[in-house]
């Protein structure tokens, strides 16, 4: 049957909920920002200026529909960040310090060496008042948390957890894999914390703060498609080697590829439903189109970053090669033209090296900005899940309706039969009474199911509105950041080359 209803009533535009929030002595603070520098850009000029504005807006925050006036901000890796909605509690979540544990395993697992071990991760949460929680969790706990959140927040865009990546015992021990898991866990927890509803759930709070860990749900995850969890393609993630000289650009997209692959694979044809809400269907179609375009743009973004990176590498190599040549010419010089040539070559080489450094910085910025696309692409799984919640709920009502129909028919049949004696009469009466009791229960269930469904529908719509607003802002923000950085670094590079052109002008004049 239905999962715990209590959380499901933590409805989106529950003004009371948000007002409770305002009553919390919450300073204008910050939400769990990801400290992953690979993923979040430094504050762009526009965002830092909006910090005070965000603080000021804190109270004038909530308008009637419960839609807050969002201040578009880009979270920073180091500084406290003001997000769209103030979270009363979580300031920053970090996942670190993976440790291996040997576990006595039974059965076949005990026979196979290495398969009984697992890793635990240190989850550190800092809260607004300066306090800190440290707990140890293993991935299994995260899976349980994710299942629980999904079950209790149906209809909402609950962030999808990192993939299980079912691997053999040996692969589990690879250093890179564990480190990447740290990164993806941290990102996941921060995303959960950033969700205005899910981030404030008790289960999440418990996960972050209780040393004893959360109880595992009894495998109850009405939404999770078995296709996702069990038959995850054994794209055993061979950890990518970091690119030379810095960021693992491709490592961060590896996770994404996996998610996308899973998403595409996990799409089962939705159950036959009679969704009549045209507005909803229109939104859904739009989101599906959006997902396609996000996928395409994401691919191009990766290719663009790579092309930029390659250009930088070659420019740097060119500079190095000419530096060597300059040194050689200087060392061997026997005449003036040679000496002056050596100097020219040296100037050129230095310019090339300087330019490559600018290019490198630009690349890092571009990666951060374009991460927005991947962020929203990842979100599409949550969106799909929320829509599945809706259709499941509708199905449930339909099945209860059909049950009721059957029950009613049986009652009608029984009642229409003429009795043939006291005993029969009594037993028939009893049966009818039982059936009527069952019907009452079923009707209660149906009414409850309908309420659930309405709730989920409302959640869907609110989340859609929130999503649409946020993605718009984020996309514009992304593009702005991208463009600003391009301007900044292109200007720098132009200056470097213009200077060299000026210095070598004499050679052009001579030849013309």
């Amino acid at each position, binding site marked *: 049957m239905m999962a715990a209803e209590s959380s499901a009533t933590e409805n989106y535009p529950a003004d009371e909920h948000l007002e409770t929030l305002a009553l919390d002595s919450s300073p204008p603070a910050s939400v769990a920002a990801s400290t992953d520098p690979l993923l979040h850009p430094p504050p762009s000029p*526009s965002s830092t200026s909006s910090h005070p504005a965000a603080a000021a807006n804190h109270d004038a925050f909530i308008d009637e529909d419960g839609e807050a006036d969002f201040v578009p901000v880009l979270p920073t890796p180091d500084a406290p960040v003001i997000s769209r909605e103030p979270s009363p509690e979580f300031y920053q979540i970090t996942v670190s310090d993976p440790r291996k544990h040997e576990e006595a395993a039974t059965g076949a697992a005990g026979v196979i060496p290495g398969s009984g071990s697992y890793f635990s991760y240190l989850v550190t949460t800092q809260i607004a008042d300066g306090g800190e929680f440290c707990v140890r969790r293993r991935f299994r706990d995260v899976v349980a948390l994710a299942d629980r959140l999904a079950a209790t927040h149906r209809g909402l865009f609950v962030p999808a957890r990192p993939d299980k990546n079912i691997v053999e015992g040996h692969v589990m021990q690879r250093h890179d894999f564990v480190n990447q898991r740290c990164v993806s866990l941290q990102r996941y927890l921060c995303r959960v914390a950033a969700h205005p509803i899910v981030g404030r759930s008790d289960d999440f709070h418990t996960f972050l703060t209780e040393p004893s860990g959360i109880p595992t749900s009894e495998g109850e995850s009405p939404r999770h498609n078995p296709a996702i969890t069990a038959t995850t393609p054994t794209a055993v993630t061979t950890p990518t080697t970091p690119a030379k000289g810095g960021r693992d650009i491709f490592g961060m997209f590896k996770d994404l590829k996996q998610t996308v692959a899973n998403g595409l694979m996990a799409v089962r044809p939705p159950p036959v439903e009679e969704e009549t809400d045209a507005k909803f269907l229109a939104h859904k179609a739009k989101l599906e*189109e*959006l997902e396609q*375009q996000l996928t*395409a*743009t994401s*691919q*191009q*973004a990766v*290719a*663009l970053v790579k*092309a*930029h990176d*390659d*250009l930088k590498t*070659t*420019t740097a*190599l*060119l500079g190095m*090669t*000419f530096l*060597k*040549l300059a040194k*050689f*010419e200087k060392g*061997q010089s026997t*005449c003036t*033209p*040679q000496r*002056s*040539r050596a100097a*020219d*070559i040296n100037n*050129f080489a230095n*310019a090339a090296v300087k330019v490559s450094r600018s290019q490198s910085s630009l690349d890092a910025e571009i990666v951060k900005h374009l991460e927005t*696309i991947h962020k929203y692409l990842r979100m599409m799984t949550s969106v799909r899940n929320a829509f599945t919640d809706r259709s499941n709920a509708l199905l449930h009502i339909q099945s209860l309706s059909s049950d009721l129909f059957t029950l009613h028919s049986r009652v009608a049949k029984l009642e229409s039969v003429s009795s043939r004696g006291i005993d029969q009469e009594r037993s028939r009466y009893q049966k009818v009474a039982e059936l009527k009791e069952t019907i009452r229960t079923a009707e209660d269930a149906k009414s409850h199911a309908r309420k659930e469904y309405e709730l989920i529908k409302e959640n869907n719509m609110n989340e859609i509105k929130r999503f649409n607003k946020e993605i718009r802002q984020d*996309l*514009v*923000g992304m*593009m*702005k950041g991208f*463009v*600003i950085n*391009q*301007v900044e670094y*292109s*200007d720098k*590079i*132009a200056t470097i*080359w*213009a200077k060299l*052109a000026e210095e*070598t*002008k*004499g*050679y*052009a004049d*001579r*030849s*013309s």
Partner: protein
Amino acid sequence: MISAERSQSQSPRSPVAAAGAPFLSISVTDPVKMGTGVQSYISYRVITKTNLSEFEGGEKIVIRRYSDFEWLHDRLSEKFKGIFIPPLPEKNAVEKFRFSKEFIELRRQALDLFVNRIASHPDLKQSEDFRTFLQADEEKMDRARSYESGIFKKPADFLQMFKDVQSKVSDVVLGKEKPVEESTPEYEKLKHYIFELENHLAEAQKQAFRLVKRHRELGQSLADFGKAIKLLGACEGDSLEKVFSEVGSKSEMLSIKLQREADNLLFNFEEPLKDYVRAVQSIKATMLDRANAFRQHFDLDQERKYKELNLEKLKFMNPEKFSESELEFSELKAASEEATKRYDHIVSVMNEELARFQEQKTADIGLAFHEFAKGQAKLAKDIADAWRSVLPKLEACSTS
């Protein structure tokens, strides 16, 4: 169509002359594919304009192909030992690239540079073969080419070859792996310099080639990205769609600029570096000639000294044979002096050529750097300007 012409560099192009002053202007133009299939080749038009008396007339146009240029190069190498003969572009490109637009244009420019460098060299331009090349009709040219490249060699050459073989044989017989080499510290240094230089330059040229490729690749991905951004914007609609559409258009525009810059780099940076490498290889060829000349001089000199001693003995011991030997000796002496003269000539010419080379290359590479910096500065500026122009709309979008 690739129209990036290499800017005029110092001496190779004929300067604009005042009226009445002697001038010689040559251009290699109009590459045309001739023939079909395996036997196809490119023909070029060589136009000579001159008022010099050694030439036949005001303007002459002939049709030449690569092997004609090769013939000229070989003839000059034969006759002008010690001079760094201007290099030719590589003969065989990979088949499928042989007729690409870029390859043809690069080759044409290199051939043009080749003839003009000859025309501006005080000694080379006097060459009769050069005049033949510029003026002879196609039939005569064909004949000259097959005559020279074949087995027909002048008698003097036979003697030369024979002597070379002799030295080689004696070396082998005597167990010497290498021929005797001149070895002054100065020349050693020069040899080391030239050989090392070639390595450095080859590496630099390789990087330059890669850079060209990277520009093209970036151009391509920027164009694709632009298209994707446009479609993404269309999903959102309204002002976002408009602004993303403009971002996409800018991307596509910049992609074209990147392709152009790639072409610019190919013609004005990578090709000059390749040219530099070829020039160094030409010096190496001259060094080989010098080594051969030295060996001949040395061997003949040794022989002469030896014979001279014997001659003294023979005077007393065998007077009849003496006069015969005396004759042989004086011939040998003449040959030895001839060889020594040749060697000395090469050495002195080489020294002049080296000075010329150093100056020329500083100018060439300086120009290449200038073109590079100019092109890159413009590209970066164009990029900055393009993105800057989108910023106001993005600002408007984010505040709305």
